[in-house]
Protein backbone atom coordinates (compact mmCIF):
# COMPACT_ATOMS: atom_id res chain seq x y z
CA UNK A 1 0.00 0.00 0.00
CA UNK A 2 1.39 3.38 -1.02
CA UNK A 3 0.26 6.91 -0.45
CA UNK A 4 0.89 9.56 -3.10
CA UNK A 5 0.61 13.17 -1.99
CA UNK A 6 0.74 16.38 -4.03
CA UNK A 7 -0.07 19.61 -2.24
CA UNK A 8 -0.01 23.32 -2.90
CA UNK A 9 -1.01 25.95 -0.41
CA UNK A 10 -0.14 29.59 0.03
CA UNK A 11 0.27 30.88 3.58
CA UNK A 12 1.02 34.45 4.60
CA UNK A 13 4.63 33.59 5.56
CA UNK A 14 5.49 30.84 3.05
CA UNK A 15 3.96 28.55 0.52
CA UNK A 16 3.68 24.81 0.51
CA UNK A 17 4.46 23.10 -2.78
CA UNK A 18 5.43 19.46 -2.62
CA UNK A 19 4.82 15.92 -3.75
CA UNK A 20 6.05 12.58 -2.44
CA UNK A 21 5.28 8.88 -2.04
CA UNK A 22 4.90 7.05 1.26
CA UNK A 23 5.74 3.34 0.97
CA UNK A 24 5.24 0.64 3.63
CA UNK A 25 7.25 1.01 6.81
CA UNK A 26 7.87 4.25 8.68
CA UNK A 27 8.43 7.31 6.54
CA UNK A 28 9.70 10.21 8.58
CA UNK A 29 8.78 13.69 7.43
CA UNK A 30 11.71 15.60 8.73
CA UNK A 31 12.44 19.30 9.04
CA UNK A 32 12.69 22.18 11.44
CA UNK A 33 9.60 23.74 13.07
CA UNK A 34 7.64 25.83 10.63
CA UNK A 35 8.72 23.87 7.56
CA UNK A 36 5.14 22.73 7.02
CA UNK A 37 5.34 19.16 8.31
CA UNK A 38 2.24 19.20 10.48
CA UNK A 39 0.25 21.02 7.81
CA UNK A 40 1.02 18.22 5.36
CA UNK A 41 -0.21 15.64 7.86
CA UNK A 42 -3.38 17.58 8.61
CA UNK A 43 -4.07 17.87 4.89
CA UNK A 44 -3.68 14.11 4.43
CA UNK A 45 -6.00 13.45 7.38
CA UNK A 46 -8.56 15.85 5.92
CA UNK A 47 -8.67 18.27 8.85
CA UNK A 48 -6.98 21.00 6.84
CA UNK A 49 -8.02 22.07 3.35
CA UNK A 50 -5.11 23.14 1.14
CA UNK A 51 -5.61 25.28 -1.96
CA UNK A 52 -4.74 22.37 -4.22
CA UNK A 53 -4.35 18.72 -3.36
CA UNK A 54 -4.24 15.30 -4.87
CA UNK A 55 -3.99 12.49 -2.33
CA UNK A 56 -4.24 8.84 -3.36
CA UNK A 57 -3.98 5.87 -1.00
CA UNK A 58 -3.21 2.77 -3.12
CA UNK A 59 -6.03 3.09 -5.64
CA UNK A 60 -8.41 5.11 -3.49
CA UNK A 61 -8.54 8.84 -4.36
CA UNK A 62 -8.96 10.65 -1.04
CA UNK A 63 -8.74 14.08 -2.50
CA UNK A 64 -8.43 15.60 -5.96
CA UNK A 65 -9.21 19.29 -5.80
CA UNK A 66 -9.48 19.46 -9.56
CA UNK A 67 -11.99 16.65 -9.80
CA UNK A 68 -14.33 17.73 -7.01
CA UNK A 69 -14.80 17.80 -3.29
CA UNK A 70 -12.39 15.77 -1.17
CA UNK A 71 -13.43 12.99 1.19
CA UNK A 72 -14.17 14.20 4.72
CA UNK A 73 -11.78 12.92 7.43
CA UNK A 74 -14.17 10.23 8.67
CA UNK A 75 -14.25 8.57 5.25
CA UNK A 76 -10.49 8.53 4.64
CA UNK A 77 -9.64 5.59 6.95
CA UNK A 78 -6.45 7.26 8.05
CA UNK A 79 -5.62 7.08 11.74
CA UNK A 80 -3.85 10.00 13.35
CA UNK A 81 -1.70 10.11 16.47
CA UNK A 82 -1.35 13.62 17.81
CA UNK A 83 1.39 15.22 19.87
CA UNK A 84 -1.10 15.61 22.72
CA UNK A 85 -2.77 12.20 22.99
CA UNK A 86 -6.29 13.68 22.67
CA UNK A 87 -8.00 10.85 24.52
CA UNK A 88 -11.68 11.41 25.29
CA UNK A 89 -11.84 12.39 28.96
CA UNK A 90 -15.41 11.14 29.48
CA UNK A 91 -14.56 7.62 28.32
CA UNK A 92 -12.49 4.86 29.92
CA UNK A 93 -9.35 3.57 28.24
CA UNK A 94 -11.31 0.57 26.91
CA UNK A 95 -14.03 2.85 25.51
CA UNK A 96 -11.39 5.09 23.96
CA UNK A 97 -9.82 2.09 22.23
CA UNK A 98 -13.23 1.03 21.01
CA UNK A 99 -14.24 4.47 19.73
CA UNK A 100 -13.08 4.08 16.14
CA UNK A 101 -14.04 0.42 15.85
CA UNK A 102 -17.79 1.05 15.73
CA UNK A 103 -17.40 3.35 12.70
CA UNK A 104 -14.98 1.10 10.86
CA UNK A 105 -16.11 -0.34 7.54
CA UNK A 106 -13.52 -3.04 7.92
CA UNK A 107 -14.35 -5.52 10.63
CA UNK A 108 -11.79 -5.23 13.38
CA UNK A 109 -12.09 -8.54 15.25
CA UNK A 110 -12.22 -8.63 19.04
CA UNK A 111 -8.96 -10.59 19.25
CA UNK A 112 -7.21 -7.74 17.47
CA UNK A 113 -8.08 -5.60 20.48
CA UNK A 114 -6.62 -8.12 22.91
CA UNK A 115 -3.51 -8.37 20.77
CA UNK A 116 -3.12 -4.60 20.61
CA UNK A 117 -3.64 -4.25 24.35
CA UNK A 118 -0.91 -6.83 24.93
CA UNK A 119 1.49 -5.25 22.46
CA UNK A 120 1.07 -1.82 24.03
CA UNK A 121 1.09 -3.13 27.60
CA UNK A 122 -2.09 -1.26 28.59
CA UNK A 123 -4.09 -4.21 29.95
CA UNK A 124 -4.04 -2.85 33.49
CA UNK A 125 -5.37 0.54 32.41
CA UNK A 126 -8.54 -0.51 30.59
CA UNK A 127 -11.03 0.56 33.29
CA UNK A 128 -9.30 3.84 34.06
CA UNK A 129 -9.99 7.28 32.69
CA UNK A 130 -7.32 9.16 30.72
CA UNK A 131 -6.87 11.85 33.36
CA UNK A 132 -5.11 9.54 35.79
CA UNK A 133 -2.63 8.20 33.22
CA UNK A 134 0.95 9.34 32.67
CA UNK A 135 1.86 11.06 29.40
CA UNK A 136 3.50 7.88 28.11
CA UNK A 137 0.50 5.72 28.99
CA UNK A 138 -1.87 8.18 27.33
CA UNK A 139 0.21 8.14 24.15
CA UNK A 140 0.23 4.32 24.12
CA UNK A 141 -3.56 4.29 24.36
CA UNK A 142 -3.73 6.87 21.55
CA UNK A 143 -1.57 4.63 19.35
CA UNK A 144 -3.87 1.68 20.02
CA UNK A 145 -6.96 3.78 19.38
CA UNK A 146 -5.68 4.89 15.97
CA UNK A 147 -4.62 1.36 14.96
CA UNK A 148 -7.94 -0.19 16.04
CA UNK A 149 -10.01 2.26 14.02
CA UNK A 150 -9.50 0.08 10.95
CA UNK A 151 -7.16 2.65 9.45
CA UNK A 152 -5.25 1.77 6.29
CA UNK A 153 -2.50 4.19 7.18
CA UNK A 154 -1.22 5.95 10.29
CA UNK A 155 -0.13 9.56 10.60
CA UNK A 156 1.93 10.47 13.67
CA UNK A 157 2.41 14.17 14.38
CA UNK A 158 5.49 14.46 16.61
CA UNK A 159 4.04 11.87 18.99
CA UNK A 160 7.01 12.08 21.36
CA UNK A 161 7.59 15.82 21.40
CA UNK A 162 5.50 16.45 24.51
CA UNK A 163 7.18 13.68 26.53
CA UNK A 164 10.32 13.75 28.66
CA UNK A 165 13.34 11.58 27.79
CA UNK A 166 12.29 8.63 29.93
CA UNK A 167 8.79 8.57 28.41
CA UNK A 168 10.26 8.86 24.91
CA UNK A 169 12.37 5.80 25.57
CA UNK A 170 9.17 4.08 26.73
CA UNK A 171 7.24 4.82 23.51
CA UNK A 172 9.93 4.43 20.81
CA UNK A 173 9.98 0.61 20.95
CA UNK A 174 6.24 0.53 20.20
CA UNK A 175 6.80 2.43 16.98
CA UNK A 176 9.60 0.02 16.11
CA UNK A 177 7.23 -2.87 16.61
CA UNK A 178 4.67 -1.05 14.50
CA UNK A 179 7.27 -0.79 11.73
CA UNK A 180 8.48 -4.38 12.02
CA UNK A 181 5.30 -6.30 12.89
CA UNK A 182 2.35 -4.51 11.34
CA UNK A 183 2.28 -3.99 7.59
CA UNK A 184 0.79 -0.53 7.54
CA UNK A 185 2.39 2.62 6.14
CA UNK A 186 3.23 5.18 8.79
CA UNK A 187 4.00 8.82 8.06
CA UNK A 188 5.78 10.19 11.08
CA UNK A 189 6.57 13.86 11.59
CA UNK A 190 9.64 14.69 13.61
CA UNK A 191 12.38 17.25 14.01
CA UNK A 192 14.52 14.96 16.15
CA UNK A 193 17.47 13.36 14.28
CA UNK A 194 17.60 10.65 16.93
CA UNK A 195 14.02 9.58 16.18
CA UNK A 196 14.68 9.63 12.45
CA UNK A 197 17.79 7.48 12.84
CA UNK A 198 15.97 4.98 14.99
CA UNK A 199 12.63 4.68 13.21
CA UNK A 200 12.86 5.71 9.60
CA UNK A 201 12.72 3.31 6.70
CA UNK A 202 12.35 6.29 4.37
CA UNK A 203 13.08 9.94 5.06
CA UNK A 204 11.52 12.97 3.41
CA UNK A 205 13.29 16.20 4.35
CA UNK A 206 11.27 19.42 4.21
CA UNK A 207 12.49 22.98 4.17
CA UNK A 208 10.12 25.97 3.92
CA UNK A 209 7.31 23.94 2.39
CA UNK A 210 9.43 22.07 -0.16
CA UNK A 211 10.99 18.61 -0.31
CA UNK A 212 14.78 19.01 -0.23
CA UNK A 213 15.67 15.34 -0.05
CA UNK A 214 14.00 11.94 0.01
CA UNK A 215 15.10 8.36 0.00
CA UNK A 216 16.43 5.79 2.44
CA UNK A 217 17.38 7.08 5.88
CA UNK A 218 21.10 6.50 5.16
CA UNK A 219 21.02 8.39 1.88
CA UNK A 220 19.10 11.41 3.15
CA UNK A 221 20.93 11.77 6.46
CA UNK A 222 24.29 11.33 4.70
CA UNK A 223 23.48 14.16 2.28
CA UNK A 224 25.19 17.41 3.32
CA UNK A 225 22.47 19.41 1.52
CA UNK A 226 19.97 18.18 4.10
CA UNK A 227 21.43 20.10 7.00
CA UNK A 228 18.86 19.04 9.52
CA UNK A 229 17.72 21.41 12.19
CA UNK A 230 20.67 23.46 13.23
CA UNK A 231 24.27 22.80 14.10
CA UNK A 232 23.88 19.80 16.42
CA UNK A 233 21.51 18.03 14.07
CA UNK A 234 23.54 16.77 11.15
CA UNK A 235 24.65 13.18 11.38
CA UNK A 236 24.84 10.13 9.17
CA UNK A 237 23.16 6.82 9.74
CA UNK A 238 25.07 3.54 9.55
CA UNK A 239 23.66 0.05 9.64
CA UNK A 240 25.69 -2.63 11.34
CA UNK A 241 25.38 -6.00 13.03
CA UNK A 242 26.73 -7.02 16.41
CA UNK A 243 29.86 -9.13 15.89
CA UNK A 244 31.10 -9.82 19.41
CA UNK A 245 31.13 -8.64 22.99
CA UNK A 246 34.60 -8.18 24.47
CA UNK A 247 35.72 -8.71 28.03
CA UNK A 248 36.77 -5.07 28.47
CA UNK A 249 33.14 -3.92 28.18
CA UNK A 250 33.19 -3.03 24.51
CA UNK A 251 30.96 -4.36 21.78
CA UNK A 252 32.35 -4.90 18.33
CA UNK A 253 30.11 -4.18 15.36
CA UNK A 254 30.42 -5.16 11.76
CA UNK A 255 29.51 -2.30 9.44
CA UNK A 256 30.00 -3.37 5.84
CA UNK A 257 33.12 -5.30 6.78
CA UNK A 258 34.61 -2.50 8.90
CA UNK A 259 34.90 -2.99 12.64
CA UNK A 260 33.41 -0.42 15.00
CA UNK A 261 33.75 -0.46 18.78
CA UNK A 262 31.38 1.02 21.27
CA UNK A 263 30.40 0.52 24.91
CA UNK A 264 28.51 -2.69 25.67
CA UNK A 265 25.23 -3.04 23.74
CA UNK A 266 22.30 -5.04 25.01
CA UNK A 267 22.02 -7.10 21.84
CA UNK A 268 23.05 -10.60 20.86
CA UNK A 269 25.73 -11.21 18.21
CA UNK A 270 24.14 -11.14 14.76
CA UNK A 271 21.55 -8.58 15.82
CA UNK A 272 21.17 -5.61 13.42
CA UNK A 273 21.66 -2.12 14.86
CA UNK A 274 21.46 1.43 13.49
CA UNK A 275 24.03 3.96 14.59
CA UNK A 276 23.70 7.68 14.26
CA UNK A 277 27.07 9.38 14.08
CA UNK A 278 26.72 13.09 14.79
CA UNK A 279 28.73 15.17 12.30
CA UNK A 280 30.35 17.31 14.99
CA UNK A 281 31.78 14.19 16.67
CA UNK A 282 33.77 13.18 13.60
CA UNK A 283 37.39 14.27 13.01
CA UNK A 284 38.91 14.05 9.50
CA UNK A 285 42.50 13.23 8.65
CA UNK A 286 44.02 12.77 5.16
CA UNK A 287 46.64 10.33 6.54
CA UNK A 288 45.80 7.36 8.68
CA UNK A 289 46.18 8.74 12.20
CA UNK A 290 48.35 6.86 14.70
CA UNK A 291 48.65 7.12 18.44
CA UNK A 292 45.05 8.31 18.99
CA UNK A 293 42.81 7.16 21.84
CA UNK A 294 39.87 6.91 19.46
CA UNK A 295 39.20 3.28 18.47
CA UNK A 296 37.08 3.86 15.43
CA UNK A 297 38.83 4.94 12.26
CA UNK A 298 37.02 4.54 8.95
CA UNK A 299 38.83 5.15 5.72
CA UNK A 300 37.26 6.22 2.44
CA UNK A 301 37.06 8.95 -0.14
CA UNK A 302 35.38 12.32 0.06
CA UNK A 303 32.09 12.24 -1.82
CA UNK A 304 30.92 15.77 -1.27
CA UNK A 305 31.89 19.03 0.41
CA UNK A 306 28.94 21.27 1.21
CA UNK A 307 28.83 25.02 0.83
CA UNK A 308 30.18 26.89 3.83
CA UNK A 309 27.70 27.84 6.55
CA UNK A 310 29.63 30.52 8.41
CA UNK A 311 32.96 28.99 9.30
CA UNK A 312 31.67 25.41 9.10
CA UNK A 313 31.46 22.91 6.27
CA UNK A 314 29.88 19.45 6.06
CA UNK A 315 32.03 16.83 4.43
CA UNK A 316 30.51 13.54 3.28
CA UNK A 317 32.94 10.63 3.31
CA UNK A 318 32.12 7.39 1.51
CA UNK A 319 33.57 4.59 3.64
CA UNK A 320 33.28 0.84 3.64
CA UNK A 321 30.75 1.17 6.47
CA UNK A 322 28.61 3.64 4.58
CA UNK A 323 28.44 7.39 4.36
CA UNK A 324 29.79 9.43 7.26
CA UNK A 325 29.22 13.15 7.70
CA UNK A 326 31.82 15.36 9.36
CA UNK A 327 31.39 18.92 10.42
CA UNK A 328 34.74 20.75 10.07
CA UNK A 329 35.90 24.35 9.69
CA UNK A 330 36.59 26.02 6.35
CA UNK A 331 40.14 26.58 7.61
CA UNK A 332 40.71 22.83 8.00
CA UNK A 333 39.28 22.15 4.56
CA UNK A 334 41.80 24.57 3.07
CA UNK A 335 44.72 23.42 5.24
CA UNK A 336 44.17 19.69 4.58
CA UNK A 337 43.17 20.12 0.97
CA UNK A 338 39.84 18.31 1.44
CA UNK A 339 38.06 18.03 -1.89
CA UNK A 340 35.87 15.58 -3.76
CA UNK A 341 37.64 12.34 -4.57
CA UNK A 342 40.45 12.80 -2.05
CA UNK A 343 41.17 9.83 0.22
CA UNK A 344 40.47 10.55 3.86
CA UNK A 345 40.01 8.98 7.30
CA UNK A 346 37.21 9.62 9.76
CA UNK A 347 37.99 9.37 13.45
CA UNK A 348 35.00 8.69 15.70
CA UNK A 349 35.21 8.65 19.48
CA UNK A 350 33.81 5.44 20.89
CA UNK A 351 31.72 7.16 23.54
CA UNK A 352 30.12 9.56 21.07
CA UNK A 353 28.10 6.89 19.26
CA UNK A 354 26.89 5.12 22.34
CA UNK A 355 24.00 7.45 23.11
CA UNK A 356 20.31 6.81 22.58
CA UNK A 357 20.90 6.83 18.84
CA UNK A 358 20.88 3.09 18.75
CA UNK A 359 18.25 0.59 17.96
Amino acid at each position, binding site marked *: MTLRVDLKHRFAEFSLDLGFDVPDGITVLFGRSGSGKSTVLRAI*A*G*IFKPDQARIVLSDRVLCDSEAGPCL*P*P*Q*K*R*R*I*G*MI*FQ*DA*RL*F*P*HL*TVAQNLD*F*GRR*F*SKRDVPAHAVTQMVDMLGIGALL*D*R*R*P*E*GLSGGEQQRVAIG*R*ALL*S*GAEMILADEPLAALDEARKAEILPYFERLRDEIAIPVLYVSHSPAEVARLATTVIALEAGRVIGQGSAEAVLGDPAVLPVGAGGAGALIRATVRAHHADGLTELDAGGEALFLPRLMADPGHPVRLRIAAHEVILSPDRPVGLSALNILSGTIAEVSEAQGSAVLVALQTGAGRVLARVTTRSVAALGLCEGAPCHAVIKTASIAQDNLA
Partner: protein
Amino acid sequence: MLSLETTGLGPEEWQAIALSLKVAFWAALASLPFGIFIAYALARWDFPGRQLLNGLVHLPLVLPPVVTGYLLLMTLGTRAPLGAFLQNFGIVFSFRWTGAALAAAIMGFPLMVRAIRLSIEAVDARLEEAASTLGASPLHVFFRVTLPLSWPGILAGAVLAFAKALGEFGATITFVSNIPGQTRTLPSAIYAFLQVPGGESAALRLVLISIALAMGALILSEVLARRVSKRLSGGGRS
Protein backbone atom coordinates in the same frame (compact mmCIF):
# COMPACT_ATOMS: atom_id res chain seq x y z
CA MET B 1 -51.63 37.87 62.58
CA LEU B 2 -49.92 35.92 59.88
CA SER B 3 -48.58 32.55 60.70
CA LEU B 4 -47.65 29.76 58.36
CA GLU B 5 -48.37 27.06 60.91
CA THR B 6 -52.00 27.95 61.34
CA THR B 7 -52.86 29.00 57.81
CA GLY B 8 -52.62 26.01 55.48
CA LEU B 9 -52.60 26.47 51.75
CA GLY B 10 -55.97 26.79 50.08
CA PRO B 11 -56.90 24.90 46.89
CA GLU B 12 -56.39 28.03 44.82
CA GLU B 13 -52.84 28.36 46.08
CA TRP B 14 -52.02 24.70 45.50
CA GLN B 15 -53.40 25.07 42.01
CA ALA B 16 -51.04 27.98 41.33
CA ILE B 17 -48.03 26.03 42.63
CA ALA B 18 -48.82 22.90 40.63
CA LEU B 19 -49.47 24.93 37.48
CA SER B 20 -46.23 26.86 37.92
CA LEU B 21 -44.21 23.67 38.22
CA LYS B 22 -45.93 22.16 35.19
CA VAL B 23 -45.43 25.29 33.06
CA ALA B 24 -41.79 25.69 34.10
CA PHE B 25 -41.00 21.99 33.58
CA TRP B 26 -42.39 21.90 30.06
CA ALA B 27 -40.94 25.30 29.21
CA ALA B 28 -37.44 24.10 30.13
CA LEU B 29 -37.78 20.64 28.59
CA ALA B 30 -39.35 21.69 25.29
CA SER B 31 -36.89 24.52 24.70
CA LEU B 32 -33.84 22.39 25.55
CA PRO B 33 -33.30 20.80 22.07
CA PHE B 34 -33.64 24.23 20.44
CA GLY B 35 -31.35 25.74 23.05
CA ILE B 36 -28.67 23.10 22.42
CA PHE B 37 -28.95 23.50 18.65
CA ILE B 38 -28.76 27.33 18.72
CA ALA B 39 -25.93 27.26 21.28
CA TYR B 40 -23.97 24.79 19.12
CA ALA B 41 -24.51 26.88 16.00
CA LEU B 42 -23.34 30.02 17.78
CA ALA B 43 -20.35 28.27 19.33
CA ARG B 44 -19.08 26.22 16.40
CA TRP B 45 -20.40 27.50 13.09
CA ASP B 46 -19.42 30.57 11.19
CA PHE B 47 -22.33 31.70 9.04
CA PRO B 48 -23.69 34.99 7.78
CA GLY B 49 -26.20 36.41 10.23
CA ARG B 50 -24.55 34.81 13.24
CA GLN B 51 -24.49 38.09 15.14
CA LEU B 52 -28.10 38.72 14.17
CA LEU B 53 -29.16 35.34 15.56
CA ASN B 54 -27.17 36.02 18.71
CA GLY B 55 -28.96 39.35 19.15
CA LEU B 56 -32.35 37.80 18.46
CA VAL B 57 -31.81 35.11 21.10
CA HIS B 58 -30.84 37.71 23.68
CA LEU B 59 -33.65 40.12 22.82
CA PRO B 60 -36.14 38.85 25.45
CA LEU B 61 -33.52 39.61 28.09
CA VAL B 62 -33.59 43.32 27.36
CA LEU B 63 -37.06 43.92 25.90
CA PRO B 64 -39.83 44.86 28.33
CA PRO B 65 -41.56 41.50 29.00
CA VAL B 66 -44.88 43.09 28.15
CA VAL B 67 -43.54 43.72 24.63
CA THR B 68 -42.54 40.07 24.24
CA GLY B 69 -45.99 39.04 25.46
CA TYR B 70 -47.66 41.44 23.07
CA LEU B 71 -45.60 40.17 20.13
CA LEU B 72 -46.63 36.61 21.00
CA LEU B 73 -50.28 37.70 21.12
CA MET B 74 -49.88 39.38 17.73
CA THR B 75 -48.42 36.28 16.09
CA LEU B 76 -50.02 33.36 17.91
CA GLY B 77 -53.32 34.79 19.12
CA THR B 78 -56.39 33.02 17.73
CA ARG B 79 -57.09 35.91 15.40
CA ALA B 80 -53.53 36.19 14.12
CA PRO B 81 -52.80 34.33 10.84
CA LEU B 82 -50.23 31.95 12.34
CA GLY B 83 -52.33 31.32 15.43
CA ALA B 84 -55.40 30.62 13.29
CA PHE B 85 -53.39 28.32 11.07
CA LEU B 86 -52.08 26.32 14.03
CA GLN B 87 -55.58 26.12 15.45
CA ASN B 88 -56.55 23.94 12.47
CA PHE B 89 -54.20 21.33 13.88
CA GLY B 90 -55.51 21.71 17.40
CA ILE B 91 -52.50 23.70 18.57
CA VAL B 92 -53.69 26.63 20.67
CA PHE B 93 -51.48 28.81 22.80
CA SER B 94 -53.55 31.85 23.70
CA PHE B 95 -55.18 31.72 27.13
CA ARG B 96 -53.97 28.16 27.72
CA TRP B 97 -51.27 26.80 30.02
CA THR B 98 -49.30 25.87 26.87
CA GLY B 99 -49.15 29.58 26.06
CA ALA B 100 -47.81 30.28 29.53
CA ALA B 101 -45.14 27.64 28.94
CA LEU B 102 -44.24 29.16 25.55
CA ALA B 103 -43.93 32.66 27.03
CA ALA B 104 -41.82 31.33 29.91
CA ALA B 105 -39.62 29.34 27.52
CA ILE B 106 -38.92 32.38 25.38
CA MET B 107 -38.07 34.51 28.40
CA GLY B 108 -35.72 31.83 29.76
CA PHE B 109 -34.16 31.03 26.36
CA PRO B 110 -31.31 33.60 26.50
CA LEU B 111 -30.15 32.25 29.86
CA MET B 112 -30.32 28.67 28.64
CA VAL B 113 -28.45 29.33 25.38
CA ARG B 114 -25.78 31.34 27.16
CA ALA B 115 -24.99 28.58 29.67
CA ILE B 116 -24.95 25.83 27.02
CA ARG B 117 -22.93 27.88 24.56
CA LEU B 118 -20.23 28.55 27.15
CA SER B 119 -19.92 24.87 27.95
CA ILE B 120 -19.79 23.86 24.26
CA GLU B 121 -17.09 26.46 23.67
CA ALA B 122 -15.15 24.93 26.55
CA VAL B 123 -15.11 21.53 24.80
CA ASP B 124 -11.69 21.10 23.19
CA ALA B 125 -12.28 21.26 19.42
CA ARG B 126 -9.14 19.15 18.99
CA LEU B 127 -11.01 16.21 20.54
CA GLU B 128 -13.71 16.62 17.89
CA GLU B 129 -10.97 16.64 15.27
CA ALA B 130 -9.50 13.43 16.70
CA ALA B 131 -12.95 11.82 16.66
CA SER B 132 -13.38 12.64 12.97
CA THR B 133 -10.05 10.98 12.10
CA LEU B 134 -11.35 7.89 13.92
CA GLY B 135 -14.22 7.68 11.48
CA ALA B 136 -16.97 9.55 13.32
CA SER B 137 -19.33 11.63 11.16
CA PRO B 138 -20.15 15.16 12.37
CA LEU B 139 -23.40 13.85 13.90
CA HIS B 140 -21.56 11.10 15.77
CA VAL B 141 -18.90 13.56 16.90
CA PHE B 142 -21.67 15.73 18.33
CA PHE B 143 -23.49 12.95 20.17
CA ARG B 144 -20.44 11.01 21.36
CA VAL B 145 -17.99 13.79 22.17
CA THR B 146 -19.41 17.31 22.21
CA LEU B 147 -22.71 16.58 23.94
CA PRO B 148 -21.37 14.37 26.77
CA LEU B 149 -18.56 16.81 27.45
CA SER B 150 -20.92 19.77 27.72
CA TRP B 151 -23.44 18.08 30.03
CA PRO B 152 -22.73 20.31 33.05
CA GLY B 153 -23.57 23.44 31.07
CA ILE B 154 -26.63 21.88 29.46
CA LEU B 155 -27.93 20.88 32.87
CA ALA B 156 -27.21 24.30 34.31
CA GLY B 157 -28.92 25.95 31.34
CA ALA B 158 -32.03 23.80 31.72
CA VAL B 159 -32.33 24.49 35.44
CA LEU B 160 -31.78 28.21 34.93
CA ALA B 161 -34.55 28.23 32.33
CA PHE B 162 -36.76 26.31 34.76
CA ALA B 163 -36.13 28.82 37.55
CA LYS B 164 -36.70 31.74 35.23
CA ALA B 165 -39.96 30.18 34.03
CA LEU B 166 -41.21 29.86 37.63
CA GLY B 167 -40.93 33.60 38.02
CA GLU B 168 -42.10 34.79 34.60
CA PHE B 169 -44.88 37.33 34.88
CA GLY B 170 -44.97 40.17 32.34
CA ALA B 171 -44.98 38.26 29.06
CA THR B 172 -47.24 35.55 30.49
CA ILE B 173 -49.96 37.85 31.76
CA THR B 174 -49.89 39.86 28.51
CA PHE B 175 -50.07 36.81 26.28
CA VAL B 176 -52.35 34.42 28.17
CA SER B 177 -53.88 36.61 30.88
CA ASN B 178 -54.52 35.41 34.44
CA ILE B 179 -57.01 32.56 34.39
CA PRO B 180 -57.17 30.42 37.56
CA GLY B 181 -56.21 26.82 36.82
CA GLN B 182 -55.17 27.62 33.26
CA THR B 183 -52.65 30.44 33.26
CA ARG B 184 -52.50 31.69 36.86
CA THR B 185 -48.95 30.74 37.81
CA LEU B 186 -47.31 31.73 41.11
CA PRO B 187 -46.42 35.31 40.17
CA SER B 188 -49.84 35.90 38.63
CA ALA B 189 -51.49 34.45 41.73
CA ILE B 190 -49.42 36.69 44.00
CA TYR B 191 -50.40 39.66 41.87
CA ALA B 192 -54.08 38.66 42.01
CA PHE B 193 -54.02 38.20 45.81
CA LEU B 194 -52.48 41.63 46.22
CA GLN B 195 -55.36 43.18 44.24
CA VAL B 196 -58.05 42.06 46.71
CA PRO B 197 -58.44 43.31 50.28
CA GLY B 198 -57.18 40.76 52.84
CA GLY B 199 -55.14 38.81 50.28
CA GLU B 200 -51.79 39.80 51.76
CA SER B 201 -51.33 36.69 53.86
CA ALA B 202 -51.97 34.35 50.94
CA ALA B 203 -49.62 36.46 48.80
CA LEU B 204 -46.88 36.25 51.43
CA ARG B 205 -47.16 32.46 51.62
CA LEU B 206 -46.79 32.21 47.88
CA VAL B 207 -43.86 34.65 47.96
CA LEU B 208 -42.05 32.40 50.46
CA ILE B 209 -42.82 29.34 48.38
CA SER B 210 -41.49 31.11 45.27
CA ILE B 211 -38.25 31.90 47.05
CA ALA B 212 -37.91 28.31 48.26
CA LEU B 213 -38.55 26.86 44.79
CA ALA B 214 -36.10 29.22 43.09
CA MET B 215 -33.37 28.55 45.66
CA GLY B 216 -34.04 24.81 45.46
CA ALA B 217 -33.66 24.86 41.68
CA LEU B 218 -30.41 26.79 41.81
CA ILE B 219 -28.91 24.53 44.47
CA LEU B 220 -30.01 21.45 42.55
CA SER B 221 -28.33 22.74 39.41
CA GLU B 222 -25.09 23.40 41.30
CA VAL B 223 -25.07 19.93 42.85
CA LEU B 224 -25.86 18.19 39.56
CA ALA B 225 -23.33 20.20 37.60
CA ARG B 226 -20.62 19.47 40.15
CA ARG B 227 -21.41 15.77 40.13
CA VAL B 228 -21.36 15.61 36.33
CA SER B 229 -18.16 17.59 35.96
CA LYS B 230 -16.47 15.38 38.55
CA ARG B 231 -17.46 12.32 36.56
CA LEU B 232 -16.25 13.89 33.30
CA SER B 233 -12.89 14.93 34.66
CA GLY B 234 -12.22 11.38 35.77
CA GLY B 235 -12.62 11.85 39.51
CA GLY B 236 -14.02 8.35 39.79
CA ARG B 237 -14.57 5.22 37.81
CA SER B 238 -17.81 4.80 35.96
